[in-house]
C-alpha cells in the first residue's frame, strides 16, 4: 500500500489552527440562535454537555441563550462512559460527572452538546444513557465540529463547522478553562497504531 503522501517520511507536523477563539465564539452564537429558532424559543429546553469539553460548550450556549431570551435554560452534563460500545477493549475507565438539572428530561427537548462529532458512537452511547434517565420529547445534537467519517447513522442538528478530514489527521478542540486557549486544530499525524494492522 502506498504511503499517504502527507505522512511519507514525516514525523508529526505542527498542528494547524482551523478555528481560533473568535471563530469559535461566532459559531457558538450562531448555534445558539439556530437552537432557539428550531425550538421556537427557549421553553422546555435542557442542554446536556458530554464531558469533558461538551460541558463548557453547553454552558456557553446557555449563556448566549440567556442573553438573548432573558431565560436561564437548564444545563447539565451526561457522562457516557458506561454506555460506550468499546468498554471492553481497554482497561476500565474513570467516570466523569453526570449532572441532570432538577426537572429532569421527561417531556423536555434535550440538546446534547459535544465538541467533535466523528464516528457517532459517543452520541449513540449518549442516547442510551439518556434513555435510562427518562423520556425526552425530542433529542437534538449540537457539535462544534463535524469531521465526517460516521460509522453509525447519526447526524448533528446544529454544527459549528463542517471540517472534512482524513482518518490519519487528528482534530483537537481546546477550550479556555480546561486548556489554555479556545482553538480547534488539525494535526497530520503518522499512521496511528490502531490502523497499522492488516
Amino acid at each position: 500500500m502506498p504511503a499517504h503522501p502527507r505522512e511519507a517520511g514525516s514525523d508529526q507536523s505542527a498542528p494547524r489552527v482551523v478555528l481560533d477563539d473568535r471563530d469559535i465564539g461566532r459559531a457558538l452564537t450562531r448555534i445558539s440562535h439556530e437552537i432557539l429558532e428550531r425550538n421556537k424559543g427557549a421553553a422546555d429546553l435542557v442542554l446536556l454537555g458530554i464531558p469533558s469539553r461538551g460541558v463548557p460548550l453547553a454552558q456557553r450556549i446557555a449563556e448566549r441563550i440567556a442573553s438573548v431570551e432573558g431565560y436561564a435554560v437548564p444545563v447539565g452534563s451526561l457522562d457516557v462512559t458506561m454506555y460506550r460500545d468499546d468498554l471492553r477493549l481497554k482497561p476500565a475507565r474513570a467516570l466523569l460527572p453526570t449532572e441532570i438539572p432538577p426537572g429532569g428530561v421527561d417531556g423536555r427537548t434535550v440538546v446534547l452538546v459535544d465538541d467533535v462529532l466523528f464516528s457517532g458512537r459517543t452520541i449513540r452511547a449518549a442516547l442510551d444513557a439518556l434513555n435510562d434517565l427518562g423520556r425526552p420529547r425530542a433529542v437534538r445534537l449540537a457539535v462544534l465540529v463535524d469531521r465526517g467519517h460516521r460509522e453509525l447513522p447519526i447526524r448533528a442538528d446544529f454544527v459549528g463547522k463542517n471540517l472534512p478530514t482524513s482518518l490519519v489527521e487528528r482534530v483537537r478542540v481546546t477550550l479556555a478553562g480546561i486548556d489554555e486557549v479556545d482553538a480547534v486544530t488539525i494535526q497530520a499525524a503518522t499512521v496511528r497504531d490502531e490502523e497499522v494492522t492488516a
Partner: protein
Amino acid sequence: MNRHLLSAGDLSRDDAELVLSTAAELRELADRPIKKLPALRGRTVVNLFFEDSTRTRISFEAAAKRLSADVINFSAKGSSLSKGESLKDTALTLEAMGADAVVVRHGASGAPHRLAHSGWVRSSVVNAGDGTHEHPTQALLDAFTLWRHLGGSRAGGLEGRRVAIVGDVLHSRVARSNALLLRTLGVDVTLVAPPTLLPVGIETWPVDTSYDLDAVLPKVDAVMMLRVQRERMSGGFFPTAREYSRRYGLDGRRMATLQDHTIVMHPGPMVRGMEITADVADSDRSVIVEQVTNGVAVRMAVLYLLLGGNQPAVSTGTTNEADE
C-alpha cells in the same frame, strides 16, 4: 489497579481516590428511575460466602445487579468436617461456571489469597472479609463516608484529618483495612483499645495507639467504633462487659466531648450498650445508616473498575480522551 482486591494495602493513593470518585458518580444512581447501568452486562459475579453475612452479601448482590451483571449466590457454612475441601472444590465448580469475579467471605484469614494465587480460578477475587485479616470494601465505604463529610468529596480531601478507631483491634479485620487505607489517603489514625486487644507488633503499623479514650475523643474529626464480642471475656481480654463499656464505650457523656463537626461511625452490627449506646447510635452525629447506603455505591465502583474493561482500571494519569 490489581486484578484482585485482597487487602486495602493493595490500593495506591490514586487507586483509592479513583474508587471514591467513581463511587460518588454511582451513588447518584439510587435517585434515578432506572437504577441500572449496562457496564457489566454479560459478566458473572459469584458471591461465595462461607460466613453468614446477609448484609454484606446483599450489598454486593445489589452492586453487581445494578451494573447488569449476572449474580450467583453460594452460601456454604465452612464445614469443619470437609475443611479445605469446601474452598478448593467450590472454587473449581465456580471456575467451571465461568465466573468473572468471585466475592469471597471466609472465616479463615488468607482464604481469598489462596483463591487468588492457587491457580484454582481465573477470575478476579474480591475479599469480602477473611477471618481477622481484612475487609477492604468496608474500609473503602468508610473512607467514602468520611470523604463526603470531612473531605468535601475532593481529591486529597482527607489529608490531615484525624480519625480514632476504637475497640477490639486484635480481632478486627475492619480495623486492619481501615488503618491501611486511611493512612494511604493521608489520614492520621489513632487506635484506642485496652492493651489486650491490640496485636503484637502494633508499633510497626502506620498508626498511633492509646489506651485512653477520653483523651483522644476531643481531638478527632471522626470516631469509628468497632464491635466487641462479649465472648472475648472468656479469653481474658477484659474482665467484664461493664468494665469494658465504662472504659471504652461511646456513650452520651463522651459524645458531648466531641467537636461539633465530628461524626460517629460503626461498621455494624452494633452491640448496643457494649461499645456504643443507643443515644449515640441514633444521634445526628451518627452516619451509621449512611455507611450502609454508601456500601452499595462503593462496591459498584470496585466491581466496575475491576471488570468494566478488558483489564482493571489504570488509576494514574488517565485521560479520558475518546474517539468521538
